[in-house]
């Protein structure tokens, strides 16, 4: 049975980033992925801010399908507001992006294994015994574990961490990649409203030419059998792009919760969506996955160098994670609660106010201020979140 310094479960952006950081420092690391090809099928709208790529992966030409300069916000009554981003964004080819990140980890020495679902993680003396469904590697030993198994994570639960999401803390999403869907180039569009996507929003992300990712997310607690994401998306697409053809269907879920309280324990760390790190208001999770993967990888390297694996030695992961994304995420979560209760009229008012601001001066904080202009308590929260 092979023994690795670290075993990473899941080769999404979080897992691949962690595996690369560890392999680069010369430690042995296995990166196990249940899919037969890393990155496919895609489960994402593929939008990412350039700052995360510059920090962690660089920007490579084949990954980029479109550049994004700003966002168009559309209210239920049709009012539009435009926001110009201060930093560039990209729409990725995530199948290629995810695959390349995993292959880069392998280039650095990680043992990448596909069609290998981790089925069981068992703490045993000073290491873990990891069971997989891969016929040639049914058991692997590892000193440390990084769980980066995404939204449907069950591995952390095996180690006693509660990861279940309440229906009000999860966005259930469906997306079509459409051909023949004319939209404004270089802009993403987000449309809100209780008839469009209750407790969530619909998006149009450009994929080059007349191709676009058109999808929406519904709060789990606002979805009903029969009135689910498919019902709303079909209606949205029929209204906006009646002539388009569906060239890809993507279903998936994003957490809209606070990050897990317990992101590390004896010998293990949890990264990316498995740690519920996606932004609770926007659902953006690629950047946070990269960041948490890198931090988990760095912490693993430090612990291995010190010959330690106890909870205290992995605690720096939690601290760094909270400082870089966790605390912001918690603040967004507190704003999300009142936000998802908005009536259509509230959304109309919010976008009307924002539409009067110069697009280059519109910020997320500004949008939220417009949203809660009547609600002093939430306003104070927003000011604290963004300006302190």
């Amino acid at each position, binding site marked *: 049975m092979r023994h690795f310094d670290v075993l990473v479960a899941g080769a999404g952006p979080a897992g691949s980033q962690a595996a690369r950081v560890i392999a680069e420092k010369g430690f042995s690391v296995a990166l196990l992925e249940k899919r037969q090809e890393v990155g496919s099928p895609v489960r994402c709208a593929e939008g990412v801010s350039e700052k995360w790529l510059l920090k962690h992966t660089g920007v490579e030409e084949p990954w980029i399908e479109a550049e994004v300069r700003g966002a168009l916000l559309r209210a239920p009554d049709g009012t539009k507001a435009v926001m110009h981003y201060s930093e560039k964004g990209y729409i990725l080819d995530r199948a290629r992006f995810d695959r390349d990140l995993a292959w880069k980890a392998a280039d650095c020495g990680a043992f990448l294994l596909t069609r290998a679902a981790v089925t069981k993680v068992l703490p045993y003396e000073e290491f873990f015994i990891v069971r997989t469904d891969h016929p040639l590697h049914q058991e692997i030993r590892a000193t440390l574990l990084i769980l980066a198994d995404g939204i449907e994570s069950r591995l952390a639960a095996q180690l006693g961490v509660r990861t279940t999401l309440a229906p009000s803390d999860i966005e259930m999403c469906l997306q079509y990649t459409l051909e023949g869907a004319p939209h404004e180039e270089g802009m993403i569009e987000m449309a809100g409203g209780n008839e469009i996507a209750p407790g969530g929003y619909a998006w149009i992300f450009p994929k080059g030419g007349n191709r676009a990712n058109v999808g929406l997310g519904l709060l789990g607690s606002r979805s009903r*059998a029969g009135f689910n994401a*498919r019902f709303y998306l079909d209606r949205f697409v029929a209204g906006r792009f009646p002539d388009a053809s569906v060239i890809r269907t993507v279903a998936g879920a994003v957490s809209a919760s606070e990050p897990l309280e317990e992101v590390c324990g004896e010998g293990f760390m949890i990264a990316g969506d498995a740690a519920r790190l996606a932004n609770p208001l926007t659902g953006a999770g690629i950047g946070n996955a990269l960041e948490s993967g890198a931090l988990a990888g760095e912490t693993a390297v430090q612990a291995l160098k010190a010959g330690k694996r106890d909870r205290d030695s992995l605690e720096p992961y939690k601290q760094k994670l909270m400082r870089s994304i966790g605390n912001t995420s918690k603040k967004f979560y507190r704003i999300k609660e009142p936000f998802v209760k908005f009536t259509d009229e509230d959304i109309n008012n919010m976008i009307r106010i924002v539409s009067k601001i110069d697009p280059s001066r519109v910020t997320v904080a500004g949008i939220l201020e417009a949203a809660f202009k009547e609600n002093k308590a939430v306003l104070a929260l927003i000011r604290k979140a963004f300006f302190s």
Partner: protein
Amino acid sequence: MAVRIDYGRCISCGGCVALCPRGALQMKSFHLTLVSERCNDCRFCVNACPVGALWPGIPDYGEDYETF
């Protein structure tokens, strides 16, 4: 009474697995499985599934269900 999975519709998105409070749903590779003994028919998953692939154990919605 446990929920039923319509495999013709399920696209293995994993959402229901994340919200089942009883750990009754699991994703074996890309195949959703149900441990029926654990399911208490709370229907969180039935309501939330983005493509309507989960059905309540008691077929009290009758034929309306067929429309979606």
